[in-house]
């Protein structure tokens, strides 16, 4: 049975862990790092880079370096979040045919699902290299506060990457699993997860191996990226005030400032003051301009005060929904790189009235928990049972555009709920249902999950047909709708009239494309290896010819030199087949030569 992995697909960093021998281990990537930047870049020569190498070239290639795509996944182009994102992103965000937010790179538009799939593939390769065989089974995490379309889109990203997604689980829940595994104590936890893009708070109760999420809340658009932007804006404003130059239009300068802002933020977690030095950031008639400034922790905390305030209300709501007072929480666990910021930690203490637990690795615990859940799903861990909740209320649009809740937020999943629908006119055969997700009163203010028609209703006076529509949320948090005619007991036909994301067909064609790319990537790698081999062979043959100049006949030398010339020419080209042919020819000749040399001279060596 193949091994199962857990992937924390983060806004800023991704992490992979494997479940083996009853434990989960985080796996380092080929560069030796235990987390991988969630960045994908497309180079001018058409190469695709993922992770650290993509991050390294961001300054020189900002338009084609895609970061934080998790902030776009499963969102509509016209949403406020996407508008905010686009105003800062150095790359283009476009509207897809179905209204989703996609990214444009050169002449091709990519869905966030595809970009995420590239990151997932990289994580998959990291794991496969470590395990020594290709992995397929995976548990992928998402922020607890992700809605249905964001979850489905993440699942689709997994499919595109050729992974078998056993389960989508919530990041804080995964963290709790890793924290509480093998712990027989019964306790109540609060998991506070502030990452690069999202904020989650979950309250759980652990009793006898049952991990029961009591409530969850959060903000899917609040994270380190927003903090960086505050610093960035501050630096830009300062520079403009001093030099009269607006660097906002210069993408390369902007990228440098963005990176420096993040660096400064990190440094100010342990220092009181830090310098920002960006030489040659711009130039005007008077010559080159350098950006040099000092940022203090005090100033930083002033800049991000509003962002930090936004952490409070989700925590209060989560406690309230869990029916707990803060004194009843036994442990507060910090997850996500942003919890290293002193002001964030202070806020946590203020909210929960106690110091957080410092014993966990905030960067790795989510992936580690995902791998454990993989072990549970494979039947390798039987002591643990995870009972999660749905973060958002599910409802339907009723008279006057009101959203009537059918399954309320923080209901344990998997679950279902039935609602009886009837007709409002005599002989009506179709009833339309608009399914929404969210907490707002009006349907229009919530997110549309889908529109359905109950079709083929037998003709009857109005109000007589009784159709029970069952709304189901499965263990991934994904919503399904089915219907039954209570009169006949038969299942009722449903027609889906609108939904977001990618269709089955879209996904299938992307999977094929990704596979072809894998083939293309493999071919490219083979070509590189072949070139290296050719270079090495040319080098060693020339050395041999030099060294044993007297022992090689003029005839052989001519042949060898001709083969070397051909190989040199072929190495410059892209034709792997031709290159292989000349390399084979050269190596055969070299072999013949060394054999002869050995016969002539070898006698001396063997003695």
């Amino acid at each position, binding site marked *: 049975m193949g091994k199962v992995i857990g992937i924390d697909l983060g806004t800023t960093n991704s992490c992979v862990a494997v479940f083996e021998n009853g434990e989960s281990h985080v796996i380092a990537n080929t560069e030796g790092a235990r987390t991988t930047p969630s960045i994908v870049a497309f180079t001018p020569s058409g190469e695709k880079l993922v992770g650290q190498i993509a991050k390294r070239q961001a300054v020189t290639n900002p338009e084609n370096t895609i970061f934080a795509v998790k902030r776009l996944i499963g969102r509509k182009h016209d949403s406020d979040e996407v508008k905010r994102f686009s105003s800062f992103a150095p790359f283009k965000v476009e509207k897809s045919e179905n209204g989703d937010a996609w990214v444009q790179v050169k002449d091709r538009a990519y869905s966030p699902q595809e970009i995420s799939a590239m990151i997932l593939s990289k994580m998959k390769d990291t794991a496969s290299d470590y395990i020594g065989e290709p992995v397929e089974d995976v548990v992928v995490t998402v922020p607890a506060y992700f809605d249905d379309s964001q979850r489905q889109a993440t699942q689709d990203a997994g499919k595109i990457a050729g992974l078998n997604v056993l389960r989508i689980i919530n990041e804080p829940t995964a963290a709790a699993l890793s924290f509480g595994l093998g712990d027989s104590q019964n306790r109540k936890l609060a998991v506070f997860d502030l990452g690069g893009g999202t904020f989650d708070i979950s309250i759980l109760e652990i009793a006898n191996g049952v991990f029961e999420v009591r409530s969850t809340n959060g903000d899917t658009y609040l994270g380190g990226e927003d903090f960086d932007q505050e610093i960035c804006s501050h630096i830009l404003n300062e520079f403009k005030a001093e030099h009269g130059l607006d660097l906002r239009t210069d993408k390369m300068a902007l990228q440098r400032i963005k990176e420096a802002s993040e660096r400064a933020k990190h440094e100010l977690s342990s220092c009181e003051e830090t310098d920002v030095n960006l030489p040659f950031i711009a130039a005007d008639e008077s010559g080159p301009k350098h950006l040099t400034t000092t940022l203090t922790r005090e100033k930083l905390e002033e800049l991000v005060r509003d962002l930090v305030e936004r952490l409070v209300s989700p925590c209060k709501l989560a406690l309230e929904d869990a029916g707990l007072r803060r004194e009843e929480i036994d442990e507060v666990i910090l997850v996500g790189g942003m919890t290293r910021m002193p002001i964030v930690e202070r806020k946590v203490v203020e909210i929960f009235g106690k110091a957080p637990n410092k014993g966990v690795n905030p960067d790795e615990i989510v992936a580690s928990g995902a791998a454990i859940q993989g072990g549970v799903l494979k039947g390798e861990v*039987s002591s643990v*049972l*995870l009972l999660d909740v749905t973060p958002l209320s599910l409802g339907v649009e009723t008279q006057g555009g009101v959203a009537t809740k*059918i399954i309320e937020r923080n209901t344990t999943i998997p679950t279902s*709920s039935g609602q009886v629908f009837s007709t409002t006119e005599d002989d009506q055969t179709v009833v339309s249902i608009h399914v929404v997700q969210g907490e707002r009163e009006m349907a229009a203010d919530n997110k549309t999950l889908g529109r359905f028609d109950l079709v083929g209703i037998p003709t009857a006076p109005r109000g007589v047909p009784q159709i029970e529509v069952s709304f189901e949320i499965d263990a991934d948090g994904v919503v399904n709708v089915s219907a039954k005619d209570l009169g006949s007991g038969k299942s009722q036909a449903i027609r889906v009239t609108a939904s977001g994301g990618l269709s089955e067909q879209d996904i299938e064609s992307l999977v094929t494309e990704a596979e072809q790319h894998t083939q293309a990537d493999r071919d490219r790698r083979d070509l590189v290896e072949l070139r290296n081999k050719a270079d090495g062979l040319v080098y060693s043959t020339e050395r041999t010819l030099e060294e044993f100049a007297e022992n090689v006949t003029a005839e052989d030398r001519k042949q060898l030199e001709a083969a070397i010339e051909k190989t040199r020419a072929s190495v410059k080209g892209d034709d792997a087949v031709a290159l292989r042919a000349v390399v084979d020819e050269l190596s055969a000749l070299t072999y013949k030569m060394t054999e002869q040399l050995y016969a002539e001279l070898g006698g001396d060596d063997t003695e």
Partner: protein
Amino acid sequence: MASELAPTEIVALARLIDELDYYQLLHLRRGASISEVKQAYHFSSRAFHPDANRHLSANLQAAVATIARRITEAYSVLRDPGRNKAYLQHLEAGHGVRMQLSEARAEAGRRAVEQKGRTPQGRQYYNLAEAELRREDFAAAARNLQTALTFEPDNEFFKAQLKEAREKIR
């Protein structure tokens, strides 16, 4: 720990699911306490949660999923005292075995309001009565409950409390 039911029993249970009320689903008596509800739910979840049953055939997994969803539906309603009471009434009134969570919640909310009184005077006299009940001065409590009822003649909760107080006087 997966389901210990035989495959045919799982399928049979899934088919019967629309006939069973929430108490029956969780093997509970109608007056079960909240901690009993929780324990029963955890026990049933260990058997029927999809995570514990991935080794089953697709067919059986679907049956298990149906059961899992319904036991969670039952738990969501029964885990809260107010909703639990509302559901009991819903059952006894013959409104069917399923109750929407939101309906149960709304009903529980209405009861909570009723219990404290809907009118300012009703609330005022009820609060007095409540304090007297705590002091076990049942005669005084009965007087104040009666006064509260003059402002809210159809408050079932007040009526029940009055009946209890009168019984205690005897």
